[in-house]
């Protein structure tokens, strides 16, 4: 088969099994768009801004586990994609970005719409390629998908000069079946002896704690994690990225940990004697000040990326490998082991944890007429029976979604944790809905975040992706305002949003439906209305308490057990 470079690209995508490609055209990719036009296997989703393309592809990837694919033109198309690429990179999301480039002959001449996108993205991709020869195109695409999806996943960018896709130059096409790179051999199985040591240490623990994260979700290891945790009967917490990796409604789950984690999760971290970490990277949002992090604990850490291990916190037993096979091996070893966990010590430990739990650190005022944002999320969870896909943006609303929607399954919670990219939620919801057209997809957002990619409402309309938007509209950049309240004497510098659009009219002008909700009593009805109408996008504009804060909070410079609790919540009196 003889194909042009543009046709080769499209054929590679077909051979890779790519369903959707999210993109935006321009001069440098015209040949590729012409090749796309002539086929109907790969569906192109036209976004309204290249950032939207990357987030939509990212939402597709997070919800399915398959790589998201993006196509953008050179120069401004490519630079517009950078925020979304960096977002995927920080959260280790598989993504392949195809990017037009000016023709080889003019690279380096400041040609029209030239940007050194390989140079620009080098620090925020897993790898990137500048293809210089059309005969290398297919093998490079194969490498890109291989790198993006194996080991620690991440975005891979392929920069394609326009002359390589020239329709007049045809060459034989052959998509490689497999690829090996002498410089890249990700670890899969963990070291047997290390795993054995880890199991022995876990079984001997008196106050054990499981701390797991996004790696369990990415590594498809929820079943193994759940089995191991329940086999041992130990408490477990998840990071923001790990929510759903272990069932959120199970009694062994003590809630999210970290800056806005529950009291019980952070206290159990602080007091545990053996910490089992898997697929989590000891991020500063969870450690608090490092010197006082888990002061009594021996630490076991399973991660596929050796550089995640002992990066921020020294660990005692490192296991380099993928969580799925490592956890499976641990289950076998625990079952075969003569030693059993010390039941008395464990009972005492659980009693302590239940005491912490009884503090109800996520409690909020349920009596007000004004809408409490937590209430909206709680109702959403009840209504959807915890089974919807929830995407989110960045801010207080994101934390409330994480705290109050109890995810029982992995890949249902889709948010930007590492980079914290406002504007992520709505396009990510579109990508998710395309992947699961029959599922309920809600984007829990804030009035500031949603405006960062608001133009994608048009994309949602064009492709009839019936997503629902739950706008927790507090009229503030609430998360920043909260910091200003706590740490800057309530000087609300530039965090009040004075001229907000009428979101209902805005949604309607894009062809969607919208409702504004001001009273707590109307919350459930509005949600039900959106839930009932499965064939259109609803924009639910909840006007919530503008002064509400996210609790608990580990403030800057504090240790994990020094949480600021909601007014009126006091561990000393309650637990006496």
């Amino acid at each position, binding site marked *: 088969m003889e194909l042009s470079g543009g046709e080769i690209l499209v054929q590679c995508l077909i051979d890779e099994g790519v369903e959707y490609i999210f993109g935006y055209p321009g001069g440098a990719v015209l040949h590729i768009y012409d090749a796309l036009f002539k086929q109907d296997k790969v569906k192109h989703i036209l976004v309204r801004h290249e950032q939207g393309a990357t987030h939509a592809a990212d939402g597709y990837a997070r919800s399915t586990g398959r790589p998201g694919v993006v196509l953008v033109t050179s120069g401004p198309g490519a630079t517009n994609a950078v925020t979304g690429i960096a977002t995927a990179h920080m959260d280790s999301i598989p993504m392949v970005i195809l990017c037009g480039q000016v023709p080889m002959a003019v690279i380096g001449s400041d040609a029209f719409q030239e940007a050194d996108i*390989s*140079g620009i993205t*080098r*620090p925020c991709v*897993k*790898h*990137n390629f*500048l293809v210089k020869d059309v005969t290398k195109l297919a093998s490079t695409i194969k490498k890109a998908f291989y*790198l993006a999806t194996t080991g620690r996943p991440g975005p891979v960018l392929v920069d394609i000069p326009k002359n390589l896709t020239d329709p007049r130059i045809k060459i034989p096409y052959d998509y490689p079946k497999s690829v090996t*790179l*002498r*410089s*890249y051999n990700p670890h899969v199985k963990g070291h047997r002896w290390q795993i054995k040591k880890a199991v022995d240490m876990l079984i001997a623990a008196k106050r054990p704690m499981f701390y797991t994260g996004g790696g369990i979700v990415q590594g498809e290891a929820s079943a193994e994690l759940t089995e191991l945790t329940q086999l041992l009967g130990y408490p477990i917490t998840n990071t923001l990225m790990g929510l759903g990796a272990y069932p959120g409604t199970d009694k062994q789950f003590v809630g999210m940990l970290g800056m806005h984690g529950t009291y019980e999760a952070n206290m159990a971290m602080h007091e545990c004697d053996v910490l089992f970490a898997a697929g989590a990277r000891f991020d*500063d949002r969870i450690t608090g000040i*490092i*010197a006082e992090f888990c002061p009594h604990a021996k630490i076991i850490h399973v991660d596929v*990326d*050796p*550089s995640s291990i*002992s*990066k*921020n*916190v*020294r660990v005692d037993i490192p296991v380099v490998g993928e969580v799925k096979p490592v956890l499976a091996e641990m289950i076998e070893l625990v079952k075969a082991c003569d030693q059993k966990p010390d039941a008395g010590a464990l009972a005492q430990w659980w009693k302590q944890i239940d005491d912490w739990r009884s503090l109800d650190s996520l409690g909020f005022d349920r009596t007000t007429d004004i809408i409490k944002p937590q209430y909206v999320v709680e109702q959403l969870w009840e209504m959807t029976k915890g089974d919807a896909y929830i995407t989110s943006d960045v801010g207080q609303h994101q934390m409330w979604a994480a705290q109050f929607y109890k995810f029982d399954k992995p890949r249902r919670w889709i948010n930007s944790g590492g980079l914290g990219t406002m504007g992520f939620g709505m396009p990510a919801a579109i990508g998710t809905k395309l992947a699961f057209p029959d599922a309920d997809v809600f984007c829990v957002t804030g009035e500031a975040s949603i405006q960062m990619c608001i133009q994608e409402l048009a994309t949602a309309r064009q492709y009839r992706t019936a997503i629902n938007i739950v706008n927790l509209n507090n009229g503030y950049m609430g998360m920043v305002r909260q910091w200003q309240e706590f740490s800057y004497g309530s000087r609300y510098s530039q965090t009040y949003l004075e001229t907000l659009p009428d979101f209902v009219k805005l949604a309607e002008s894009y062809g969607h439906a919208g409702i504004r909700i001001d009273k707590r009593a109307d919350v459930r009805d509005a949600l039900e209305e959106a839930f009932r109408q499965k064939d259109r996008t609803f924009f639910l504009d909840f006007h919530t308490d503008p002064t509400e804060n996210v609790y608990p909070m580990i403030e800057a410079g504090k240790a994990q057990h020094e949480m600021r609790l909601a007014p009126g919540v006091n561990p000393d009196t309650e637990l006496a």
Partner: protein
Amino acid sequence: MKCASPPASTPTRSLPKPMSHIISILIENESGALARVAGLFSARGYNIESLTVAPTQDATLSRMTLVTSGNPEIIEQITKQLNKLIDVVKLIDISESTHIERELMMVKARAVNAGREEIMRLTKIFRGNILDVTPTTYIIEITGEKSKLDAFLSTVGEENIIEVVRSGITGILRGERGLAV
């Protein structure tokens, strides 16, 4: 020795004294490979004292020698992060085993009157060569460990030195062991 101050995020449980490490790297001879290494160091706040690169007998590979410093935790992260770069095929911290290190230096020195004899004598003692002679200058070539080159410069005296160019350190392991694919 220059010491990088550790980035804010490094472990603080134990901080032994930073020391110099010589890391030898085999890396794909691809465009951008050098930029990936240099970018890694600047992005993560690591210190590069010197860096040399040249192709190997196998034209698809380059060999880099990188001198860096930091406490053991930082060096561990540096080697892990370097290994994580897709273009890096293999690396070894040769300063952890017996090895030979060499640096080449060329010095343009002011050589007039009695100084001409004196510098010639010093060059001989340091086993250097004089590569170029003018009525007022010499260019001297010296190879050796860093400390030897430093010693030569301080003996010649700053007031007599017009220009110094140093290659940066390269090194190789002693014995059978080596760095190869």
